[in-house]
């Protein structure tokens, strides 16, 4: 009887303490991907240093990310995107082509993302100030 109880207790403890071994990093990437795709994101605010620019209620920049990893924005740039993790930060890499067929690539850090709101940031070449972009999906 003791043996049965010990075996049952051991099984219970193993189940309880090993109930979740899913890879968290990949889970985060999947979740970010699911949150941003199949939506059009409109730029509401941009902040450079202490200067805030609002585009709310105005004709503004927008970008669409699709589940097949293609993207198209209001400037007419279309291409592909990917999200990678680098030292705990999630980087959105966009490779596009201009109307003229020239390649244009950029990468923004995803500071925060949700179903409705997204904050991206980047530092322009030759500058030290971070540019923050505040998007809302509609």
């Amino acid at each position, binding site marked *: *009887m003791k043996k049965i109880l010990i075996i049952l207790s051991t099984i219970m403890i193993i*189940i*309880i*303490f090993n*109930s*979740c071994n*899913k890879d*968290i990093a990949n*889970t*985060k990437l*999947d*979740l*970010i991907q*699911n*949150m941003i795709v199949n939506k059009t994101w409109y730029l*509401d*605010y941009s*902040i450079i240093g202490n200067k*805030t620019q*609002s585009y709310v209620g105005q004709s503004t920049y927008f970008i669409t990310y699709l589940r097949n990893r293609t993207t198209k924005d209001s400037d007419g740039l279309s291409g592909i995107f990917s999200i990678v993790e680098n030292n705990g930060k*999630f980087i959105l890499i966009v490779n596009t082509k201009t109307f003229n067929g020239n390649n244009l690539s950029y990468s923004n850090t*995803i*500071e*925060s*993302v*949700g*179903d*409705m*709101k997204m*904050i991206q940031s980047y530092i322009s070449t030759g500058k030290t100030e971070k540019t923050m972009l*505040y998007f809302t999906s509609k």
Partner: protein
Amino acid sequence: MRTLKLIPTNFILIQIILFFLNSTLNAQVLSKKEKDKLYLIHPGQERIRKIKRTLSRPFVNFVGNELYLMSSLDLSKQNINDNGISSPFNYIYNSVNSNTFKAGYSAGFRVDGIYKQKHSYSLIFALNRITTGNKYLNKYSAAPFLEDFTHFKADNQFTTINVAMHYRKLLPINDMNKFKFYAIAGPSLDFKISNTSNDNLVAGSGKRALINADFGAEFDNNGYYIIFIHYKLGENIKYSSAQVVLNRFEIGMTIKASDLF
């Protein structure tokens, strides 16, 4: 003439007695297969008998066990403290926060009995479909966005298997020969069997086991049925970055299984 008359009567009587003896003898005769069975050892049956004896030995003090079927309405709310975790995710506070109790349900069975002829107990096995309201204790802002946010979204619908062991204290209320009122207390364990969402997993809150402290009252109508209200206060067994405390009220009824089947 008289003798002649008696002979057939006796003959008939003897015949009847012989007939019954014969039939009795026939009934006692065993077939070859049956005879063999008596001498054969049945290792399977022996093992089952042995296991039954072994299992019943530690439970000799648990007597008067009655099986009941139970079902209940569950009202649940969870308090979520994300402990200020840094996370790249945002959820609009007003869309995820609903500081209310929401309804779910559970069904299962329980065994009621008495330990050492003195202490009343119930052992419950149930399947719960839980839908909870959520109270997020922390909210964050991300100016110039006007909305408040949380960095963690807990699952608010899940299925668990619940095992509970309750001590039942008879309360001296009313005529106790007719109706009995009990106060109950005891621990219970919930194990989530439904899938955990990615939102719930990312903050390291994918723990499936919850331990609860249960309190409540029960009304027993002469053992035919029991109406109960239980309060359960539960928390994840293993530490997770976001602490989720689950409050539940179970309002339900049990019916003796032998009365139904």
